[in-house]
């Protein structure tokens, strides 16, 4: 992989989530697409402002859950009916009420694991390097009390000078050019 050089993007810093959402919404409305918001806690409206797209984590979670359910219920049925048929208190071999609890637990287990690992697989974590950490104010503020909007240079509409003017229109605390 070639070493990337040059500008990664322009990083605008805000003090409140409302200002961030307003800027992000305007950026999206004026045609920017390659951008991201960075907040110390989840701000759903920020995600909505930059064109919230559905990820497939919930689908993976559902499929994982169903897989766990079917796997355990089939396993129990196979063991009780074909592999090791045992007479337990005179009950039928196929005693489904007894199968429900383990099947339910595997549903939860598989759903949880699929959600966790699916999330990691889809969001690219763990990541050892990210250009934004080159910016001092990002390092200090992104996980405590600052709200950031980054317009990325890969966006066709991106232009260092013009985009800077655009961002400064929202009265951010600062606009920093971030290198790769």
């Amino acid at each position, binding site marked *: 992989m070639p070493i990337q050089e040059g500008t990664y993007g322009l990083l605008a810093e805000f003090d*409140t*989530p*409302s200002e961030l*959402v*307003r800027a992000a*919404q305007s950026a999206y409305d004026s045609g920017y697409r390659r951008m991201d918001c960075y907040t110390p*806690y989840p*701000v*759903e*409206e*920020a995600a909505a402002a930059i064109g919230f797209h559905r990820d497939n984590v*919930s689908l993976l979670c*559902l499929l994982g859950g169903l897989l766990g359910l079917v796997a355990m219920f089939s396993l129990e049925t196979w063991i009780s009916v074909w592999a090791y048929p045992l007479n337990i*208190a005179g*009950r039928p071999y196929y005693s489904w*009420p*007894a199968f*429900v*609890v383990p099947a339910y637990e595997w549903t939860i287990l598989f759903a949880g694991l699929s959600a966790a690992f699916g999330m990691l697989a889809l969001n690219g974590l763990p990541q050892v390097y990210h250009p934004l950490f080159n910016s001092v104010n990002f390092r200090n503020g992104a996980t405590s009390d600052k709200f950031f909007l980054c317009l990325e240079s890969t966006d066709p509409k991106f232009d260092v000078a013009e985009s800077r003017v655009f961002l400064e229109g929202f009265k951010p605390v600062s606009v920093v050019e971030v290198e790769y």
Partner: protein
Amino acid sequence: MEQHSGYHEKTLPADLSAPAFVNGWRSRALIIGAVFSIIGVILGFLANDGWAHFLRAWLLGFMISFGFCCGGMALLMTQYLSGGKWGLLVRRPLEAMTRTLPLVFLYFLPVGIFGVSLKKLYLWAQYPDTENALKNHLINATQAHSIHFKKPLLNPVTFWEVSIFIFASWALYTFLLNRWSLQRDADSQPNVFYWQKRFENLSGFGVVFYSITLTAAAIYWVMSLDPTWYSTVYGLQFLVGQAYGVLALVILTLIGLSSAQPIKTIFRVTEQHDLGKLCLAFTMLNIYLAFAAFLIIWSGNSPEEIPWYLDRIRGGWGVIATLDFVFHWLLPFTLLLSRDLKRIKRKLVVVCCIMIFARCWDMFWLIEPNFKDAARNLHFSIGILEYIFVPTGLIAFWMANYFSQLKTRPLVATNDPHVAEILEPEHAHA
């Protein structure tokens, strides 16, 4: 920034009273109530079963109305204890539900008078002289033994004493919760912490007290229809079932009111989503308790306990039980899993209607198989149609009462710090 006015704080409208169309709801409920009751009475004459099914269906309608009224009281106390913005939203509708208690007591009277005093409903009231009843083959040996053994609990005097006591104590709670709520709004803002503490102290004990008295009520009014059977989780199942029904009803109310002020201003998607999540939680808790009770009795496989389930599974009842599972859990659960569905009013309304219908369906499955003519023998009779008309009539009249009560107070409790929060734009969590 006109186009972003949604980001700015909103203000509470000056007029907080219920919109005029609530009167329309009430008239509609009264018409439905009248039509269904008349058909119910006509069927009572046609059924030719000594009004037996009419009374059973009345019990069903009473239990559902009672669930809305007193379940509303339980949820009202719970939101005082838990806090949260959803609590502010549902407070006034829940208070309106609690104020229907006189009507619910009126619904109870026929159950007590005809069911117990005139011995039409409960086996233990019908045959207090177990020896003779056994000799004449009116009841079997198990029933005779149970009725005899449980006599200190299951006799008309104790039934009336317990019922009157619990109604009186709920009336006291209803009175205090409603009165203090108005006093709190009339009081000045700095005293709000005093009121919060006061409500917490009332509700903390109240929730425990209600759980215990509801267990007694569920045992006397429904479980004792079959004197041979007992389950310690029975009262808790009613408690969760009531919360399940009340949540569905309160969401329907809020969505209905949200087309006009003042609810339009304060009912945000965030809180709607929260209420939907609570529904999902109660859907899970409900099936958890119901299935746990079944699994324990199935595992024990004891002849003292399983007949209650066999009465409700064999002879066609399996279909009703399976559909109960579908309406009560499978449909609401799978639908409420979706994030979008909880945030779209039109779709959430459908789920809430399914949930309320499921409560009635479940109650039918609990009540009807207790009786000799219906146990392990689901069959059509004119009497069974009463289960459609009498409860619908009773619930419709209850709804009319609820809508009247909704009109008597402002729809938003104003002396609460959550009011300011609920008027904020949705993303400003900071």
